[in-house]
């Protein structure tokens, strides 16, 4: 069992995809048509990732014995 969910909308997935896109575009064997598509996809990921980054509040939850979670009050400064 691994904890990493195959969530393509996560920040990690987007940043990873961006790395892939850049590497692919910088390689020789990508057609112009394909390069354009990659470019557009890349720009979309940047926009979405920036949205994620602008999230303001840290969510803190407590893991219960049942395996469920509930919000946890913390007195963080």
């Amino acid at each position: 069992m691994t904890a990493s969910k195959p969530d393509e909308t996560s920040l990690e997935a987007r940043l990873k995809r961006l790395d892939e896109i850049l590497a692919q575009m910088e390689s020789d064997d990508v057609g112009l048509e394909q390069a354009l598509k990659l470019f557009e996809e890349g720009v979309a990921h940047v926009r979405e990732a920036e949205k994620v980054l602008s999230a303001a509040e840290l969510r803190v939850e407590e893991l219960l014995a049942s395996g469920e979670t509930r919000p946890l009050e913390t007195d963080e400064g």
Partner: protein
Amino acid sequence: MADDLSLDLFGEEPEEPEEPPQQPAPAGPKVWSVSQVNRAVRGLLEDSVEPLWVGGEVGGWTRSRAGHRYFTLKDDRAQLRCVMFAREAERLPTDPDEGTEVRALGELTLYEARGDYQLVVRQLEAEGAEGLWRIAFEKLRTKLEAEGLLDPARKRPLPAYPACVGVVTSLEGAALRDIVSVLARRAPWTRVIVRGTRVQGEGAALEIARAVDAMTRSGLADVVIVGRGGGSVEDLWAFNEEPVARAIVASPVPVVSAVGHEVDVTISDLVADLRAPTPSAAAEGVVPDRDAIVHRLGRVPVQLARALRGSAERRRGAVVGRMSRLARTMERRFAPRRQALDRALARLERDARVALDGRRRRLGTLAARLEALSPLATLQRGYSVARSSDGQVLRALDDLPAGTTFELRVTDGRVAAESLGPVPDPES
């Protein structure tokens, strides 16, 4: 020590050792029962000797089923029986090996059932205050090392951008506050899941181990921080115990150990995928800094555009390259043929000229022959041609009724003429 006790009962001969106390013999000396004696001596020992530290070498260490430890303290000339009851013995980081130099704090007493006097040990230390801890630490470290669990190759890289961070620590501790505040500052998009546990005291190690298990196996966290704030060696001890180490080793996701302040390395530090000197440092280690990502993301569009331009230029370069290569190929391929063509053309031209010359000569002879057949030549021979004003050649009598004006073509010009009508044929 017994010499200090001013008790003269040893000078008397006991007669009935197994008799109940307070049964004086009818005559003769007072006889004590053994129980009486032992109780009396025990009282003397316990009342007259303050708790004391005794130093010596450990020997004959045994552990009863109930968890009590029995051993002797020795120097080169004497030995002293000792007992450490389960309650205190439980707090020992490890049982000392045979021959370990220790010091024991305890009270002298007498075990009445056997008549043995002994030291009831409350606290046992080796080589200074942390000796036994050190020994226990080394024992476990050696064991885990033998299993290959400290191998640096076992350490997994942490996820670069965890969506969810698990934390195993005390819900009341400063460690949790520190971790949460660092995560809130650096990566507020992160989900944080905490599993509270006691981190010190009786049974803390097992509790921590279970919490680590629950967290790492929940499938929620991409990375787990386990730890607590600073404290004494004893406070931090749970993180040097085997159950915690095993729970960390068994984790399916990377674990960061963050125990206390920088100086103390614990067993959990050694088996974790990353050791952080403090809980705050652990939090900084598991998430990227927002500013760093923002900066990086800011550069991406530029990189994308550059890559796109590069891609287009490579295409264009490829086309131009191919065109010129094609041109060169064509030239190379057609060069021999062009020479052949040139030669053919030249030959054709020559042939044509030759043919032309021949024709021309032939034309000359033909012209000469034509000349001979020409009407002009006939005219020269004395014939003339009669033609009407509209150019019709007049050949027969019908063409020339009387009064018809016509032209006569003669060898050097034309003359106007008029028909006077047919001439009777002398032969008709």
